[in-house]
């Protein structure tokens, strides 16, 4: 049996330079400009005059080793075995010979991977595990993403939008998909306070930790049926599930009340407007697997309102800031409710503190 001593540890990842195509090694740090040639295809031109062509293809992110081997084969066939993935989980093939581009695109399509996502398009949806892997999920991840992108695919494969549009999904408030700064964010939400499993809570969790986990002080220690446990002041609960994160006996999943919320207008880049958080557009839509039609419809509505109304380069949040939130709600037809009004820590700062109003 292997002992600790003959194990290699703490070696870190292989150095990236092992994987760079020669054209990149040669022109590293010497790129001059780039141009988008057509949907999903761009060229970077180096000071040396060398050119690097990138073909970007969609990916469901959850990919099997079979698919990965197909990608590897395509990389061998078209670009000396060189490929990379993007920060939004697309796959990119790195070519030096532009004549091979169309064949590559055809091959990618043949295995079900449309090419696009560059420039003023909707790129891949950053997302998370959902029911495929996470204990915490209030909705599925990959399934919702599939449905939404099936519907929006035209915007991935074409560049007909005013600017970039970035969608992200997280299946619970932990927000592993970091949806909080997305043009459109799809967020799984619980809406029922934890169902405390009094039986044995005491053994799997430390009660003081559970109590401390609650940001609204909704949890307090209690004896239930002679067992040391906790009780939840339900009217104080806003379903963050932080108690569940520290204690499995605080069950949050609840088919009747779990669902999806939709947020809009966040961004990350510093281009034009500073980074912004996304804001609540739709507080709740039910989980309706397998195709989540309500979510798909809501996202499309938002995309279309923006696509139609935004000025060139204007991201969702910039667009809404210009037209004002009242008009956003009018144009989308979404209902404005009590839930849209912040009532957490910094609530007051989101109230409209001026008389600058459009006529309604």
């Amino acid at each position: 049996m292997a002992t600790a001593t003959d194990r290699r540890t703490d070696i870190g990842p292989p150095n990236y330079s092992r994987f760079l195509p020669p054209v990149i090694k040669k022109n590293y740090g010497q790129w001059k400009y780039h141009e988008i040639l057509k949907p999903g295809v761009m060229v970077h031109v180096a000071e040396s005059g060398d050119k690097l062509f990138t073909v970007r293809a969609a990916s469901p992110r959850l990919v099997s080793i079979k698919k990965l081997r197909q990608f590897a084969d395509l990389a061998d066939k078209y670009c000396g075995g060189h490929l990379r993935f993007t920060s939004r989980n697309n796959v990119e093939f790195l070519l030096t010979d532009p004549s091979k581009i169309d064949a590559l695109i055809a091959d990618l399509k043949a295995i079900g991977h449309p090419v696009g996502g560059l420039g003023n398009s909707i790129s891949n949806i950053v997302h998370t595990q959902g029911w495929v892997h996470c204990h915490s999920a209030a909705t599925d991840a990959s399934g919702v993403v599939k449905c939404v992108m099936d519907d929006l695919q035209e915007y991935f494969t074409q560049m007909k939008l005013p600017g970039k549009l970035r969608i992200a999904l997280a299946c619970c408030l932990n927000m592993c998909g970091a949806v909080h700064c997305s043009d459109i964010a799809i967020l799984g939400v619980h809406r029922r306070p934890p169902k405390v499993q009094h039986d044995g809570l005491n053994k799997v969790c430390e009660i003081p930790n559970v109590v401390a986990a609650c940001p609204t002080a909704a949890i307090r220690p209690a004896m239930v049926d002679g067992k040391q446990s906790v009780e939840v002041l339900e009217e104080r609960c806003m379903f963050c599930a932080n108690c569940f994160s520290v204690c499995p006996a605080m069950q949050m999943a609840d088919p009747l009340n779990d669902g999806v919320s939709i947020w809009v207008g966040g961004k990350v880049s510093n281009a034009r407007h500073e980074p912004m958080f996304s804001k609540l557009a739709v507080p709740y839509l039910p989980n309706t697997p397998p195709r989540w039609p309500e979510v798909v419809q809501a996202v499309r509505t938002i995309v279309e309102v923006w696509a139609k109304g935004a000025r060139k380069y204007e991201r969702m949040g910039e667009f809404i800031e210009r037209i004002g939130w009242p008009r956003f709600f009018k144009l989308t037809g979404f209902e404005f409710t009590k839930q849209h009004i912040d009532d957490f820590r910094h609530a007051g700062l989101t109230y409209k503190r001026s008389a600058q109003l459009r006529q309604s």
Partner: protein
Amino acid sequence: MADSNGKQTPLLDELEKGPWPSFVKEIKSMAKESPMCQDLLGQLEKSYGEKRGYWKHGGIVGVMGYGGGVIGRYSFLNEEFPHVAHFHTIRINQPSGWFYTSDAIRTLCDIWEKHGSGLTNMHGSTGDIVFLGTQTSELEPIFKELTEKDFDLGGSGSDLRTPSCCVGQSRCEWACYDTMQLCDHLTHHFQDELHRPAFPYKFKIKCAGCPNDCVASVARADMSIIGTWRDNIQIDQAAVKAYADGGMNIERDICGNCPTKCMQWDGKTLTIDNSNCVKCMHCINNMTKALRPGKDRGATILLGAKAPIVDGALLSSVLVPFIKLEPPYEELKDLIERIWEFWGEHGKNRERTGELIQRVGLGNFLEAIGVEPIPEMVAHPRENPFIFYEEYLEEGDEEE
């Protein structure tokens, strides 16, 4: 200079110099007749020397039947300056818009000459006529004489504070409702709330005729009533042209400063996309002859401004984007009463309305006072995902 008591006020004397009118001169001008003013000078000189005030907390002093209107004040240095041992102020409700006749002024002066220091603030920060410095024994006589001349006290303590308003339609072409009339009406209608503190804390109302907000209502009033309109800005194109001919850079200085960039000037015609105008007033302010607010006028009601103690200052926020304001103002008075009712029931001691709203949540507050939530009330919808729901489905419930 030595004051008439023979005491020196070398530090204060420095404040008689310089071009700006001097409050020291004002006090000194009374010092001959008024021992109170002499002692005030003495104590103030001492404050200037020692770099600290010498006033004590006031006890409860007032006139019979009223809980507000007088601020009690006593001196720590009552032995050294016996004439300011008591030095209460009286708040007298100003007439709307701070208009007076010379006779009215003289009437006030005469009363104050008889019963107090002869020093005033025209006006206090809330808007009252402030009579600065008298003794407890003088309060009833002053009150009697004031009311005989149709003046009454203003607010203090946990009551409705003296409402105030901008000059409005009496002189200003932009007033979108009659601020002076409304202010006067509300003041008279709510006399009981003004004189008999029964709220959790103070409540201020200020009426501004247009979004220029010349009474700073958005920053200083629990209820800010700000005039506005909901149709199109009135444009006199010939007058616009005259401004351009006169050298105004309309493109840069007017259109360029429009917060929503909803104006266009093509060198001949000024076009406004009124659906995007947020009524900021900038263009109107600077082309007074060419532009005017629309004709369908009313006001925006905002709630909740206050000074920073104890959780930070607040600006008022939108409650009603547009309301018509015509006598007898029933809708508005109704709204005010619903707010007071909820605040009276749920407000903690020393909790202003703005703080209450933050504590219970604007959404819950709206529900309680029976107002629908609308996006005009927020700068933007919430960013955090911590959404409260009062109810949830249980197994066996009907599906939604």
